[in-house]
Structure formats: structure tokens, C-alpha cells
């Protein structure tokens, strides 16, 4: 029984001659060429040498921005405090249409910004009698009293300044909050807060989630990223620091962030992910998609590659 010939699926039986082909030789040559190129380019251009941004460098460069961010962690207005899953339940998080994907995944990296970013690090400071009393007052106060202190400080914090090594805010009835913000800023400037935020999970300190979240809640890190064209709105995903080439292959992923509706959407992350997953599935199933699978045959690029063969037919 003979079936009709399907040009995109079937291949005619080859009746011509065969030529030996040494794929090991070609692979070895490719490996050596790439290795030589890698070493040569590394010797000539070296590699990016940006120092890691820490909470210490941030709080020393812009102490008021740090103190304002610390306050936003305390009053619950920071990006992390309002993010939702996987850190907390403050919002539904990223949604793909009616699907609350982030919410379904749930809180698996719990972050309580008041406790984790302010109270716990301050509690770790030794021999601070005034601070210890302030922390006791905070713990002993009712939720409404704490809220009143934080609100009073937040209203006055629009006039926050940094002078003579101290955070200055003309706040009244703010309880222990002024001491918290000032001492946390001092702690950050000394480098102790970096350590306190990464040593909350045992001996080996490889989890940098909390200091990174704290850093990203401020405007300092974003300002550095903007200078190096690393923001999402600057096609930053495909860029590298300095004049080095970056991850050019991520151009399509970052492209979607630049165009509507993604550029104006609060759910852009999951929407762009959805588009890329869809395109990946399309790519995976190209051999089964009529029209798309015919492109190589109709563009006839293969005849250019194997032109010697087709000239002899």
C-alpha cells in the first residue's frame, strides 16, 4: 500500500553515494577554536568588575534614602511589604488573566518587613540599654499604639535630614520609632545590618533574599541600575555593566516589556512569561504546524547550504 508523499514530513529514499564524515574531528576543531577565542578575549578584555552593592554602601552613600526605606518597611508601604506571594499575603501578586498564579504558589519565603528588617536586627545589637528599653516598649504596646507612633513619625518624615551622623525628624508622639530608624541607619552604615540579614538562617549564609529585598525597596539600587541601563524599561535584561556585551539572546524576552500592554501592566512579569511559554510551545511543535513547518522548504535556504549537491543533480 503506498501513501501519498507529504513534502514536510516524508523524505525520499537516498539512492546516491555516501561520503565519510568525521564528526569527532569537527567537534575537536570547534572546541579548540572556542577555547582559544575564550582565553584570548578574556586576556584582551578582562571581565566586568563592579563591586557588589551592599546595605553598608547604600546607607553611607544616601543615609536618608536608607532611613526612608527602613520607615517604609516599618509602616508597611515598601514594595516588599505590599508584594504578596511568595513573601506575604498583602496582595494577590502576579495574575495571568483570572489566574492568580503567585497566590496559588503561596508564601514560601515568608518576610515580615517589620520584624525581619527592623525589630530582629535591632534586637541583635548588644549593650544598647536605650534601644533595649525602646524595643520592650514596642513589644509591650498595643497594635493601635504602635500604628499611632509609626503614623506620627511617617507624617514628620517628609522633613527627614541627616546631620552630624544622626537621622533627624521633627516627630512628636512617635514613641520608640525615631530611635529605631536612627539606630538601624547606624547599624547599616557600620555593615552590621548586612550580616544580620543574612545570618538568620543558620551557619552557612548563602540566602541573600532579605538584604536584596531591602536594597530593592530603596531608590539607590535603581539609580545605579539606571546608570548602567539595567532597568526593565531599558532592555536591561540583555545588558551588562560597563561596555561589555550582555545577554543578547534575551532580546525577545525583554522586548515584550517595552511594548503595550506589557509596559503598562502591573502583571507584566507573568504575562511576558506566558507569551514566552506560548512561543516556546509553538517552537517545540513546529514540525506539526502546517504552514510554519513549510517555511524551510519554501525559503529553500537548504539549497544554498547544499548547493554543490543540487548543482550536480
Amino acid at each position, binding site marked *: 500500500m503506498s501513501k501519498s508523499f507529504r513534502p514536510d514530513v516524508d523524505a525520499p529514499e537516498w539512492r546516491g553515494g555516501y*561520503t565519510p564524515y568525521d564528526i569527532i574531528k569537527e567537534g575537536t576543531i570547534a572546541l579548540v577554536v572556542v577555547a582559544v577565542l575564550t582565553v584570548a578575549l*578574556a*586576556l*584582551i*578584555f*578582562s571581565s*566586568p*568588575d*563592579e563591586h557588589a552593592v551592599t546595605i553598608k554602601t547604600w546607607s553611607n552613600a544616601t543615609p536618608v534614602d536608607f532611613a526612608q526605606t527602613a520607615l517604609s518597611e516599618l509602616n508597611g508601604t515598601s514594595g516588599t511589604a505590599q508584594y504578596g506571594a511568595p513573601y506575604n499575603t498583602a496582595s494577590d501578586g502576579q495574575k495571568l488573566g483570572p489566574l492568580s498564579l503567585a497566590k496559588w504558589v503561596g508564601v514560601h519565603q515568608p518576610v515580615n518587613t517589620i520584624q525581619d528588617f527592623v525589630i530582629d536586627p535591632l534586637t541583635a545589637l548588644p549593650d544598647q540599654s536605650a534601644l533595649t528599653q525602646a524595643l520592650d516598649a514596642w513589644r509591650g504596646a498595643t497594635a493601635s499604639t504602635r500604628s499611632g507612633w509609626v503614623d506620627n513619625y511617617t507624617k514628620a518624615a517628609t522633613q527627614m535630614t541627616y546631620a552630624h551622623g544622626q537621622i533627624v525628624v521633627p516627630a512628636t508622639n512617635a514613641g520608640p520609632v525615631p530611635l529605631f530608624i536612627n539606630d538601624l541607619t547606624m547599624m547599616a552604615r557600620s555593615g552590621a545590618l548586612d550580616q544580620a540579614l543574612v545570618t538568620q538562617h543558620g551557619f552557612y549564609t548563602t540566602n541573600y533574599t532579605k538584604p536584596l529585598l531591602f536594597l530593592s525597596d530603596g531608590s539607590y539600587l535603581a539609580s545605579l541600575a539606571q*546608570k*548602567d*541601563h539595567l532597568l526593565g524599561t*531599558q*532592555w536591561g535584561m*540583555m*545588558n*551588562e*555593566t*560597563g*561596555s*561589555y*556585551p*550582555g545577554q*543578547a539572546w534575551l532580546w525577545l524576552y525583554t522586548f515584550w516589556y*517595552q*511594548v503595550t500592554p506589557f509596559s503598562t501592566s502591573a502583571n507584566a512579569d507573568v504575562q511576558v512569561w506566558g507569551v514566552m511559554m506560548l512561543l516556546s510551545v509553538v517552537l517545540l511543535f513546529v514540525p506539526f504546524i502546517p504552514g510554519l513547518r513549510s517555511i524551510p522548504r519554501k525559503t529553500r*535556504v537548504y539549497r*544554498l*547550504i547544499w548547493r*554543490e549537491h543540487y548543482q550536480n543533480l
Partner: protein
Amino acid sequence: MSWFNSVGALINLDHPGHFLHWHFIQVSVANALVMTLMVATFVVALLAPFPGRRSRKENR
């Protein structure tokens, strides 16, 4: 160590990059250069004759 440092700094790229802007498109000159080289390599791969073509012809 100092020898490696001096060799590594033959061409120092640790300075602010240059970017090409066209409407909403932003691409660094370094990325544009790499992409151009990739396309050029692809074109060369299409057009350059296969190595060993001459010897294959002679063997026929």
C-alpha cells in the same frame, strides 16, 4: 599577579557603555556588535564552501 592585571587591562571595558536609541529600542553598542558578528558568521556559514570540497571532487 601584576602581569595578569596589566594584560587583563589591554582594553578596559569597565566604563559607561554607549547605547543606540531608536524609538523604544535601546541596544548597547557592544551588543549590537556581537549581534552583527553573529549574523555575519551565519551568512559566512551559508556561503563559505565546505572544507574538503576539492578533495571530494578529486576523489570522484
